[in-house]
């Protein structure tokens, strides 16, 4: 799939990566200060309709970034599955947002803007930063009291197009168009309340608006890559790995991975319910009926040391699911070589009870979790832990 986002720490080492983040922060601070966001009066004026700079800067930034992100994804340059989307926790988000709104009008800043205010020696900004640190401190000490609420109404990685059931590209066009209408209304309000003449606004804004709208329309026309298109960009490379049996892992290696405490191993069983109930590997989850897109999202969000093993009945029956999940950028994805049949052939013995058609033993069967010390042998190690590209936290973790 796409080359971007990069794994900065892998590419540059942590010092190099942190330097890049520092540069991004530098530009962020420069822009915030230049916009006047170090001045609390500028920010507060938004809420008395005198000048709507906060609204204009924020929504211009959002629609610009959004259009570019989805355009880069449509063109196959950026892998949208590896981008950090803040997970949705409805009520903690809404309640925290309300609290922040009140804090905004009382204190005159938000955390980011107060940093540049303090950096440019605004005393009120300095007091705000101290207050924010105090608020964060109190939060850390008190969240334990209402932990269940903090984790409530969790909807995971959820985007507006999914919530509303509309095509991503269409939504991008609608959001850009809505923002442009809001800017038109904002300029009207500013003229009425703040006495800011519309003529003084730069003419280039019309050109910029037209360009954004055209780009958004392009995003809608091209569409976001679906699984088929994602696979097409990978096919030569990944199909070769599959054919060279680089991803088919020997049962003995899977057993050793299950007992490797440095790894988290996720075993996904593709067989039907009957076969699964009769016998499955320890901790295997049955995914025959699962939605593969949701499954991919879950797997991408796992910690970096996660290895996922697909198990079919005889091995090659897992190929199709492997292709699908690889196309969705699931990292460290392997197949149990020979499937459950090969597993049983390796670890089942005369001394153990037979896997019986009428006995739903599941993972209680002794062969589901064999003792690794009793089974020694040579295998060609296949699993290479790939350093993760998808960030596991956003700017606020």
């Amino acid at each position, binding site marked *: 799939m796409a080359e971007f986002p990069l794994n900065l720490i892998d590419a540059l080492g942590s010092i190099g990566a942190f330097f890049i983040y520092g540069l991004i922060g530098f530009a962020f601070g420069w822009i915030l200060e230049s916009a006047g966001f170090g001045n609390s009066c500028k920010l507060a*004026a938004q809420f008395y309709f005198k000048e709507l700079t906060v609204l204009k800067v924020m929504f211009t930034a959002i629609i610009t970034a959004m259009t570019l992100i989805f355009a880069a994804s449509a063109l196959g340059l950026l892998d949208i599955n590896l981008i950090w989307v803040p997970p949705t926790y409805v009520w903690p988000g809404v309640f925290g947002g309300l609290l922040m709104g009140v804090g905004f009008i009382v204190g005159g800043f938000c955390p980011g803007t107060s940093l540049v205010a303090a950096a440019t020696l605004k005393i009120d900004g300095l007091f705000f930063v101290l207050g924010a640190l105090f608020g964060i401190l109190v939060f850390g000490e008190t969240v334990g009291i209402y932990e269940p609420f903090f984790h409530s109404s969790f909807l995971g990685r959820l985007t507006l197009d999914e919530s509303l059931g509309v095509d991503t590209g269409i939504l991008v066009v609608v959001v850009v168009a809505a923002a442009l209408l809001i800017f038109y209304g904002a300029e009207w309000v500013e003229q009425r309340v703040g006495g800011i003449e519309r003529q003084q606004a730069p003419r280039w804004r019309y050109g910029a608006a037209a360009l954004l709208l055209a780009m958004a329309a392009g995003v809608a026309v091209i569409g976001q890559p679906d699984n088929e298109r994602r696979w097409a960009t990978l096919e030569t490379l990944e199909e070769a790995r599959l054919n060279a049996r680089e991803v088919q892992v020997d049962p003995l290696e899977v057993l050793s991975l299950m007992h490797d405490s440095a790894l988290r191993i996720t075993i996904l069983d593709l067989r039907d319910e009957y076969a699964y109930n009769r016998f499955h590997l320890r901790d295997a989850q049955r995914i025959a009926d699962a939605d593969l897109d949701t499954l991919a999202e879950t797997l991408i969000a796992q910690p970096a040391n996660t290895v996922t093993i697909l198990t079919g009945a005889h091995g090659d029956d897992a190929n199709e699911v492997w292709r699908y999940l690889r196309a969705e950028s699931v990292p460290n994805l392997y197949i149990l070589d020979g499937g459950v049949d090969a597993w049983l052939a390796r670890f089942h013995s005369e001394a153990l009870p037979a896997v019986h058609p009428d006995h739903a033993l599941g993972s209680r069967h002794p062969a589901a979790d064999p003792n690794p010390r009793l089974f020694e042998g040579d295998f060609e190690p296949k699993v290479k832990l790939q350093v993760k590209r998808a960030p596991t936290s956003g700017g606020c973790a």
Partner: protein
Amino acid sequence: MASDYPVQPRRGRPYWNPYLSGLLLGVLLFLAFFITGSGLGASGGMNRLLVWLQDLLMPEHVDQVPYLLKMAGGSLNPLKNWIVYLTIGTLIGGLASGLRAGRVYVETNKGPAISNGLRWCLAFVGGALMGYGARLARGCTSGQALSGGAVLSTGSWLFMIAVFAGAYLFAYSLRRSWN
């Protein structure tokens, strides 16, 4: 790119036009996502710097509070996270821009009707509400509203509506401190 907006710096060059700031901020936000996979943020960096300080002063306490434990428990270093460097960069960038435009000087921005002392108190209280709310909402205006908004996160858009609602709801009660 000067503009004739009512709120201007007391001294130094005027602020940028909001559409220009917004466009540049949007391109920066895109680049941040494109290169690193995550957007911008501010409260996360402040949080980690604070936890780092707490860990220096009272490591046993940090090891007992689950929320802090995740960042600084045992030998974990809360500063080993990209957001910290982004936050330090933000401070330096703000200072550099202010120096270049002649806007770095000691002052307190407030409405004419209140004293400096009251403004400072309100800034502290507002900051505390913001800091608390930002942790509860798992993000501030930069990390949630801006970054999450650009990638169309449903929760981020709900959050954004809540922030504006909270501020407009209380704007009338606080009009004397700004006008």
